[in-house]
């Protein structure tokens, strides 16, 4: 009886290529580690050096929070506008980049390459361009943040779109919906939670990416980070880190509560 059962069991598909893949991956990683001379033992040996710096951060210089509050408000303001613009711009981009939305091969690939290039532009270069065009001002900062945001939101969202359940899409196809309706009814509800959290995440990054704002002279807390660092006042740095953390968590909390109440 046993043999008979085994006779009928379909042939198990070979996993060789998968194992080969794993081995190659491991070799690549290992070789890279050797190439950059990553020796775990060094960390064990010198790990305590870290605490020199950490101990210099304590106690945080709370008074710095007061000093930096206007800059923090500026940062929030610019991050808000930059994220908003980026969000709006990223919407068409993300649908163009997702392989399961428009089945026009060249358009999808071209959009993806475009998005890739956009995301490769370093902050410094963005700053150089926008400062030259719009001046060393908050506007340049906002525009730079928008471009930066498009890269993040569009990329994460189109990946989310590619992973959605296609059942609802099928039903929209079956009722004869056109592309926009198909997206609005089949895709949007499914990616909405993702999208919202990516937007919030980008907002958070934009608050932290204050450095970009500093580069275009738009002020913000980036300036204060640099100042505290370059005068080696690590207690001020810690105060700023904690301040940013609180602001970010607060914003998260507020938006969570609004979403819960409204949706």
């Amino acid at each position, binding site marked *: 009886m046993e043999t008979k059962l085994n006779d009928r069991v379909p042939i198990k598909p070979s996993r060789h290529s998968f194992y080969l893949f794993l081995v190659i991956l491991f070799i690549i990683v290992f070789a890279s580690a050797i190439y950059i001379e990553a020796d775990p033992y060094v960390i064990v040996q010198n790990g305590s050096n870290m605490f020199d710096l950490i101990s210099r951060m304590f106690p945080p210089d709370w008074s710095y929070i007061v000093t930096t509050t206007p800059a923090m408000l500026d940062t929030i303001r610019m991050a808000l506008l930059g994220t908003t613009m980026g969000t709006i711009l990223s919407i068409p981009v993300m649908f163009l980049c997702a392989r399961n939305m428009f089945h026009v091969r060249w358009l999808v690939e071209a959009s993806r390459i475009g998005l890739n290039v956009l995301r490769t532009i370093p902050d410094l270069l963005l700053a150089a361009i926008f400062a030259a065009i719009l001046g060393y001002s908050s506007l340049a900062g906002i525009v730079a943040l928008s471009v930066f945001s498009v890269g993040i939101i569009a990329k994460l969202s189109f990946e989310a779109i590619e992973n959605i359940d296609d059942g609802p899409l099928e*039903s929209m196809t079956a*009722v004869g919906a056109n592309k926009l309706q198909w997206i609005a009814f089949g895709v949007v509800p499914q990616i909405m939670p993702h999208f919202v959290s990516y937007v919030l995440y980008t907002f958070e990054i934009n608050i932290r990416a204050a450095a970009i704002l500093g580069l275009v002279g738009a002020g913000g807390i980036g300036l204060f980070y640099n100042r505290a660092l370059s005068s080696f006042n690590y207690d001020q740095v810690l105060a700023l880190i904690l301040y940013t953390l609180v602001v970010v968590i607060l914003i998260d909390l507020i938006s969570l509560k609004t979403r819960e109440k409204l949706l």
Partner: protein
Amino acid sequence: MIELKNVSKVYPNGVIGLDNINLTIEKGEFVAIVGLSGAGKSTLLRAMNRLIDISDGDIMINRRSITSASGKELRMMRRDIGMIFQNFNLVKRSTVLRNVLSGRVAHNHTFRTLFNLFPQKDVDLALQSLERVNILEKAYTRSSQLSGGQQQRVSIARALAQEAKMILADEPTASLDPVTTKQVMDDLKKINTEDQVTVVINLHFVDLAREYATRIIGLRDGKVVFDGPAQRATDEVFKDIYGRPLKEDELLGKEVG
């Protein structure tokens, strides 16, 4: 009228879903498709409104080939074909009402639908459809919070709200209790006879098939093994549709148990 000419479907993994099917279904017919699980019933239905592209052959809806249609033409053809899915295909995160209203999109301006500005008449229609399947009170509930049968009823309501000229129903009553089943089948029969809507339905219940259908098509391994009026589908015929595998299966069962 639905015509299938030499239709075959081979899935990318090599499984043969449909094997050279030739069929003509006239307007106003009530056709039941029966067959073992895995016989290709869903594949056949999904081929008819081109949710899957067939590998070979041609399918004509009202003398226009849906196989070669595209763009607006294809959309308009599909608008007139309602579909009830075996696995419901609801947007779980949306409310019941929005799921039903999504059946109306092709009847409205894109702009209105995007901003959820459906005309009152459509909203009424959607609510009526929900009432027909007895879940009006769940209109504003999230679809994920429904019981299995309730979800199935939402997907039926969506197809009803579509006011299509043709309905393809994939086991629409699988998760329903007898009372609701009867009601749904009566409803389908009513729109079939009163509005001359063609109904093609996959059914597992021989009784229901006999009771409601005017014509029964038997599938086995992707091939049509019976096609005739309901009266001619005797117990013998069903035995034939299900029969051969039945014996095999029983054999298998014995062997293992």
